[in-house]
């Protein structure tokens, strides 16, 4: 974090609003995006697929990483079988082919799944920036309900359009029940 020490760090992470229903949050997120805010996030206790569209979220990198992982696993599995059977430990059994493709399929397949699955899980976790032991959103004591029953929207102070008064009024206009400034 020392790299950021010289920059001017605002003591405020952003403004956070609490909503009662999923519908309110989706509508609020859509309007926030339409109002021109870029650095904001919605928080919900369950995945809301409507939010992807409302916030224009389309990160497909997990899929690409998984594909790459799968292809790597496939190559590794098949190469391992072939290298071991043809070069490292060749067994001449009645002159049969050393690289016997059908017999290598199970191991190749399992390696494909193993590599793809692990890449998928780890790329999702890392792209999400997890594990993150600390995050400013947890500074608002009401945020504990974000993992249970309530819906939250946070506009970050880093956003160019952010203005303490205007943004607050904007969030209030979205029908938020509670609004609070969240410390960095």
């Amino acid at each position, binding site marked *: 974090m020392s790299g950021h020490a010289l920059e001017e760090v605002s003591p405020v992470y952003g403004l956070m609003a609490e909503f009662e229903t999923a519908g309110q949050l989706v509508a609020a997120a859509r309007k926030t995006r339409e109002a021109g805010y870029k650095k904001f996030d919605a928080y919900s*206790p369950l*995945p809301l697929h409507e939010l992807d569209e409302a916030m224009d979220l389309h*990160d497909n990198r997990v899929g690409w990483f998984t594909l790459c992982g799968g292809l790597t696993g496939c190559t590794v599995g098949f190469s391992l079988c072939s290298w071991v059977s043809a070069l490292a430990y060749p067994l001449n059994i009645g002159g049969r082919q050393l690289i016997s493709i059908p017999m290598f399929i199970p191991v190749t397949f*399992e*390696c494909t799944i*193993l590599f793809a699955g692990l890449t998928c899980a780890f790329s999702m976790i890392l*792209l999400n920036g*997890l594990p993150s032991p600390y995050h400013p959103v947890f500074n608002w004591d009401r*945020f504990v309900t974000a993992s249970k029953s309530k819906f939250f929207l946070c506009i970050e102070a880093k956003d160019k359009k952010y203005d303490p008064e205007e943004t607050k009024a904007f969030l209030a206009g979205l029908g938020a029940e509670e609004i609070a400034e969240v410390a960095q």
Partner: protein
Amino acid sequence: MEQPVELASEIKIGPVIDPGLSLAAVSDKISSIVLKRKTTLGWMVGVFIGFILLQGLLTGLTWLLMKGVGVWGLNIPVGWGFAIINFVWWIGIGHAGTLISAILLLLNQSWRNAINRFAEAMTIFAVMCAGIFPIFHTGRPWLAYWLFPYPNTMSMWPQFRSPLLWDVFAVSTYFTISAVFWFIGLVPDFATLRDSAKHRWQAVIYGFLSLGWRGSARHWQRYEKASLLLAGLATPLVVSVHTVVSFDFAVSIVPGWHTTIFPPYFVAGAIYSGFAMVLTLMIPVRSIYSLEGVITMRHINNMAKVTLATGLIVGYGYTMEAFFGWYSANKYEQFMIWNRMTGPYAPFYWALIFCNIITPQFLWSKKIRTNLMAIWIISLIVNVGMWLERFVIVVTSLHRDFLPSSWSMYWPTIWDWAMYIGTIGLFTVLIFLFIRALPMITIFELRMLLPGAKVKEPVAQ
């Protein structure tokens, strides 16, 4: 996402979740089982029984390591006894978990949401029990790492053309992917537990496990994508695992094993026994923890239907085995199937037919599918039947070798039984610990079924 309340003809099956529950109520209901509920006497008794049975495993393993595999009832020709029977039985039980968590997710069957966590836990514990058997069956389990390809001073490499090696890859991949899938599914629920914790230590432990999950929409988007991909990967995986297990038999040239029907029939049998085990465990847990509003009669009914359907596939498998034994015009095959039906192990074969073909037919009746006690008893019978199936396949195919001079009988010894019962104890203890320490129902997916999860944007937008 909303489930319509379905009134199925004359008997009411009910919805997939009690629609009166709110988001907060569901979160509280499941997390309080872990966080607030006192450890009950029933739980203690359950763990105690499991722990006593587990001693059978520890004693059996100790004696085995002192004396060698000779303490088992194995002989030549029956070199594959309880170790392989139990291995296949346990792996099969595990498969329902993956089916429920992955295949039903891809098929968009939202009723799975209430039972997938439990079924996945069952998968992982069952695979752990399964793994013990082949490792100790190798005779020198401390050298089990020789199964993996790694550069070594002996300049030896594994035989990649052997189904037994495929097993190593299939089962270890299966365990890894199941565990990862399970953990990923737990992350948002760990966050719920962290935020509901009464004590600091609970918040710290669950907070650590939750990886700092905060329910961000950007995270959920990737999370949902990853879940779908993992489900897509786990689906062919579960099919491949039991296919590979069946190859252990089918690739050999032993009459009774050398059959092309083995892979599909093994997979169906695995799902069959797995669903039976889910029912065996779920029915008591549901009433002990009063989860009737979450695990509804619709779940029980659906699981009973899957059990019936897979049971019919298994029945078809048995019929085809017998038919091809005769139709092959191969006298070894013919003798094998005739010996299976009328030979010294005939009672096992007919008990298997009773357990796996006759018993599930009761599930055609909706009255029985909605009678918890009846389903529970049927599920127990199916579990026994599937164990008998593996016994019949392994033992009856081997004990009459090609030459009558090498015929023999196989009877398990007390050490075989000790280990088998011991793994049931291990499984029981793990299930009880899981129920106590982790949310046994996926809370965030349960929320998705509630009316509160339905997105109705305010009109003025």
